[in-house]
């Protein structure tokens, strides 16, 4: 009798998880990166329940995806992380017949170096890395170079990204090197530059997306941000003091993609979700919510003049030519970047 009770209890323990696994798609996206009404619309149209979860850095996301195989059905890594997941064999090869709306993706984002033929990834949003500045405090001519972040005029007024690739990358660019440098001398020089910037008191704080609010509040003069956040801050700033610039040395172009982990448990639903996001009307809603650069030609058409007039989201061909993707680094160079960045963070 007692054994029976125990067995029943054990079943009760396991049952809910098994019974509810159907009709669900587990989506792991960046924080604040979708129009939430889109999720409701998807649930209404398909009857599939969306578990929507957020991350704030690519590194956090990678650890979670690796450590919880099968827990996630759709995830949105940036391009260099697509490459890393791919190299680790963690991504599913996509069947494009199940994503008819893939045809909407802009041609210049197709067949990228990080995932040849887009075999595993569907672009979701793209953007650039640049400088958000307060026109009342910063001379417009100064922001034509990354050197503005070392300019004594703005001492204690700079918000720097607490992100390894972006932090190292902009210093490398300022020195005229590639953001993907694998030359120790170049990396050493970039590190020393960043340490000098820190110890000389240029930086007000190291952080991430909270910068947009700080810039609107007038807490600092300059911030290193992604284009989408810049657009958000510019819209929010009623007094029109904020502007965005990509320094002439060049910068980073990034693409956040939707991918399906190889271990995903709800593959059909994952395809349905990705295709849904590629539908022009849905893609338009998402762009209108977050104001990042759209990958979707149909959505851009629907958005019309309002979108086309935004200089932050539409860098000129001249600037675009000077942007580069981040390559995924192998273990050796990852160690080097990590170690050097720790040195920057510890410097005083």
């Amino acid at each position, binding site marked *: 009798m007692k054994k029976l009770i125990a067995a029943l209890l054990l079943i*009760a323990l396991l049952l809910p998880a098994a019974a*509810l696994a159907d009709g669900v798609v587990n989506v792991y996206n960046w924080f604040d990166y979708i129009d939430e009404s889109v999720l409701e619309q998807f649930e209404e149209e398909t009857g599939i329940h969306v578990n929507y979860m957020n991350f704030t850095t690519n590194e956090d996301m990678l*650890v979670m995806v690796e450590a919880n195989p099968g*827990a996630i059905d759709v995830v949105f890594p940036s391009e260099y992380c697509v490459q890393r997941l791919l190299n680790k064999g963690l991504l599913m090869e996509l069947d494009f017949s199940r994503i008819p709306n893939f045809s909407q993706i802009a041609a210049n984002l197709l067949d990228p170096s990080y995932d040849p033929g887009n075999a595993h990834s569907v672009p979701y949003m793209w953007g650039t890395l640049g400088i958000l500045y307060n026109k009342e405090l910063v001379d417009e001519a100064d922001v034509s170079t990354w050197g503005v972040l070392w300019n004594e005029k703005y001492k204690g007024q700079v918000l720097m990204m607490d992100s390894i690739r972006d932090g190292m990358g902009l210093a490398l660019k300022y020195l005229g090197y590639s953001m993907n440098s694998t030359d120790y001398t170049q990396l050493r020089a970039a590190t020393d530059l960043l340490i000098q910037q820190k110890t000389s008191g240029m930086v007000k704080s190291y*952080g991430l997306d909270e910068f947009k609010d700080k810039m609107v509040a007038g807490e600092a003069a300059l911030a290193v941000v992604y284009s989408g956040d810049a657009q958000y801050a510019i819209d929010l700033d009623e007094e029109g003091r904020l502007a965005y610039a990509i320094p002439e040395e060049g910068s980073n172009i990034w693409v956040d993609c939707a991918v399906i982990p190889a271990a995903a448990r709800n593959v059909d639903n994952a395809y349905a979700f990705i295709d849904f996001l590629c539908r022009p009307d849905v893609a338009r809603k998402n762009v209108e919510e977050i104001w990042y650069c759209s990958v979707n030609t149909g959505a851009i058409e629907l958005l019309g003049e309002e979108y086309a007039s935004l200089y932050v989201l539409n860098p000129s061909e001249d600037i675009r030519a000077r942007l580069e993707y981040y390559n995924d680094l192998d273990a*050796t160079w990852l160690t080097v970047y990590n*170690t050097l960045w720790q040195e920057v963070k510890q410097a005083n």
Partner: protein
Amino acid sequence: MQFNSSMPWWSYLLMGAGLLAFIALVAQSIWRHRGVHRSLFASPYTLWMIVFTVLPVVLIAYYAFTDSAGGFTLDNFRAFWDSNHLMREQLRSAAGDEVAATVVRGSVNIDTLVYSLWMAFLCTAICLLLGYPAALFMADRQMKLGATIVVLFIIPMWMNFLLRTIAWMSLLEDTGLINQLLEAMGLGKRQLLYNQGAVLLGMIYNFLPFMVFPIYTSLSKLDPRLSEAAADLGCNSWRTLYKVIMPLSIPGVISGITMVFMPSVTTFFIPRVLGGGHTQMFGDLIEAKFLTEGNWNVGSALSLVMMLLILISLSILRKADPNGEGGGIA
């Protein structure tokens, strides 16, 4: 087996009830046996602790002494001493000996550790200075404060610790409340946030109650007749405090120091929010090793060093209070 939040809340309760019933079943079968010795009552706990405390610590030790391929190595500890060690080794194969030779010893880990210890020391000392008088006055029977004051000290601890810290950020910002007050008083704005002082403030704020409670507990246990007797024998109130009350409250002080020092050494989050990421503490470093860099081996070595350091300092503290009578919050 996967559990995720797609489950309705009642399924959580169901699972919990199942778990609980299972444990109750075990417990019941223990005491149904008439002759069973009571010490066996501790067996579920012993089992639990072996699986969820001893085993995990063993795992940390395992990772600390192995490399990524699983072979025995002391490299992770060398990496603790020389934070550039792994990078140098990697560069040797990727860029040649010449480049590797230019890499000097990195002191990131040691510096962070020293800095954390220093900050924890400052935090503990200030908490003691602020907290001892507070505990003394709270325990003062003439003040007739009763239990209310204790409750008043507990309530702030119920606010989420992250939110309490963020609240300080909004107080200290350039456009924050304190600066607005300063400006209104004609004193001008000051940079209050993003420096060591702000980090220290955040730590003291979060840990002060842990200093006050143990001291209060040990003081309120004192027999009031002791100080009366001291007064009868000609001690003034300062002398009574110094000669009678303070020595008797040592166990509480020790317990308070432990409870403040330990969490402050490994503080993380506070330096990031209030310190603007300018400095990091050992907790941030360990977190970065595991979550940002994904280097569990070095991360484990750092954790092990941390644990050892705390064990040593605790055993030194215990020497001052051999009976371990310092009251906790309970």
